[in-house]
């Protein structure tokens, strides 16, 4: 009896040790400082929350998840170096970065290493280059911008539009698609304004918008710059309706811009205000853990980890080489994997299909005005 106990104790200890030794290692490279700090911090916290939950429930196929976080400083050059360093440690899956420019320069490294990369970038071109290892957590611009243009034309009834965009891969990608779509629908672009990442003073840009006197303004900047231009638009008394994407009406933008954010509208693939029970529960858990309301980047980070879980469980084994193949064409249902929050399908290019939302900021809160269904 005594020896049996000893053996079982030893076995338990060995199992515990092997489970620890065999933890599934994920590597995250995100914008933890610099212009994208809001993006990266939310993304990182979303990842940590998901991993904590999954590990508390016994991990993935009985193995714990572990993640290392590295800071890209919102700089593509630093991101590339950090991703190379992360890949040298042979992670199971690479998570991040969030900025399209950083994804663009790091994706070839992950593809060369044969490691799947689940990222937050939204530039259209990212998934159009035939990379077999790159996956989105949110809509690419080729999916979201046509919806935006249609809303500006059909619902806002805007015949003339001013387009303000940030001069980087993300901004240029969105601007190209939206201008093409607006043109196709018959709305005229009367001001096409490029701004710089990190720009502090928007007085001149808003002056130009005022001079163009458009029926609607499409704003496509990063979060902090969005907040600054919203304040300047209010300061200079621009009353044309404002339309954007998630980056115009995110939680952080509302916090930074205050009153000036009221009335702004945006198409969002993901929002913590979505009328979806699982998302509401996520928001509550996140707010409780980190003491602030997450934006869509928190959701993206959270979803990235659950994509890893669902794909691995689908394979039935931890196989980094087969991971990307398995995720292509995969549909994950929220009923089977609640952590995925909404039913989602991944295309062969790594793009996603999911329902999306039309949101307006009313008295400092995101109000979902319409739910746009999954395409397929």
């Amino acid at each position, binding site marked *: 009896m005594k020896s049996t106990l000893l053996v079982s104790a030893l076995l338990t200890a060995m199992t515990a040790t092997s489970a620890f030794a065999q933890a599934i290692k994920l590597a995250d490279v995100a914008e933890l400082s610099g212009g994208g700090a809001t993006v990266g911090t939310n993304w990182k916290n979303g990842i940590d929350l998901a991993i904590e939950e999954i590990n508390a429930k016994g991990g993935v196929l009985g193995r714990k998840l572990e993640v290392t976080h590295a800071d890209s400083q919102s700089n593509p050059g630093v991101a590339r170096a950090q991703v190379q360093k992360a890949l040298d440690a042979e992670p199971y899956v690479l998570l991040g970065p969030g900025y399209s420019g950083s994804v663009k320069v790091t994706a070839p490294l992950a593809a060369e290493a044969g490691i799947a990369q689940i990222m937050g970038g939204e530039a259209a071109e990212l998934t159009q280059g035939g990379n077999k290892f790159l996956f989105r957590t949110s809509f690419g611009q080729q999916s979201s911008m046509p919806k935006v243009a249609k809303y500006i034309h059909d619902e806002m009834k805007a015949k003339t539009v001013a387009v303000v965009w940030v001069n980087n891969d993300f901004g240029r990608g969105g601007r190209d698609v939206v201008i093409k779509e607006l043109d196709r629908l018959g709305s005229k672009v009367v001001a096409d304004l490029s701004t710089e990442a990190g720009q502090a*003073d928007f007085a001149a840009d808003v002056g130009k918008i005022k001079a163009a006197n458009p029926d609607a303004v499409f704003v496509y900047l990063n979060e902090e710059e969005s907040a600054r231009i919203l304040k300047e638009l209010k300061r200079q*008394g621009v009353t044309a309706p404002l339309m954007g994407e998630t980056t115009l009406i995110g939680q952080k933008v509302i916090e930074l811009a205050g009153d000036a954010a009221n009335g702004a509208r945006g198409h969002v693939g993901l929002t913590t205000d979505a009328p979806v029970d699982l998302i509401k529960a996520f928001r509550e858990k996140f707010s409780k853990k980190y003491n602030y309301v997450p934006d869509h980047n928190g959701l993206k980070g959270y979803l990235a980890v659950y994509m890893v879980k669902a794909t691995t469980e689908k394979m039935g084994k931890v196989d980094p080489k087969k991971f990307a193949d398995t995720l292509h064409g995969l549909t994950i249902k929220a009923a089977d994997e609640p952590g995925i929050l909404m039913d989602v399908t991944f295309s062969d290019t790594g793009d996603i299909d999911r329902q999306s939302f039309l949101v307006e900021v009313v008295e400092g809160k995101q109000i979902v005005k319409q739910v746009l269904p999954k395409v397929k």
Partner: protein
Amino acid sequence: MSNLFDLLVAGLATGAIYALVAVGFTLLWQTSQTINFAQGEFVMLPAFLMLAAMHVGAPFWLAIILGILLSMILLGLAFKLLLVDPMMRHGVLPLAIATMALAIGLKEAVKQFFSAEASPFPSIVPTGDVSILDHAVSLQSIGVLVVAILAVVGLTTLLNRTSLGHQMQAAAQNPTVARIIWVPVERMILLTFLINAFLVALASLLITPIYLAKFSSGEVLGQAAFIAAIVGGFNQVRGAIAGGLLIGVLDNLAAAYVSTQYRAAVPMIFLIAVILFRPQGLLGRAEERTV
């Protein structure tokens, strides 16, 4: 045309803030040959001190007072005693490099202890418009201009019309002679450091509601104010004021009529032109050096 008017008003408002910061540059240079490359970070920090005060429950008005007082202690007194005085004896260049190090230190400290993310900052001027010459001008622009002008007028009055100001001028122009006529030179130098700290805290209060409180927000401001000080004349307070206003307007006009990508280049090109053709600055005096 209406666009031009709006651009001029916005440019003057930004320029007035540059002027406050640029005046600080010239004050420190004149009295202690300090080129403070951390001047931009000096504008960034007071906003965070005020936010910290509000965080522990102080109302906004009290946070402003505390922020300004703390700035004067940290960025005036401590800056002079702990960095400028020990480095001064090694010459102008080592001191300038030390201020660059201080700039990095301040940025990293705010990033570490506060946040790398931007934070909102309340405005002392309410939002809204008033009509001037049939143009809607925002109260915020007017408020910024008025406060900045009051500060500059107050400072020039102090320097030119009071005994204290004359003593400061004497200490700046010829410390040896000033000592002979019993001017407390050391105290006058300290006073300019405190005035500089007050001006940057005021600039911080005015600019942060627009630019947001962020650890890196001093970079642009420091550079703009430095250019303004050189363009106007590094050894003249009135030169720094003119330089500040000019750079603010030029920057806005460049963004509107040249391109946003090249807006930062236009003041730089202007700076090069000034250095080439009028090295003492637009309103500065040529300084002679003797051996």
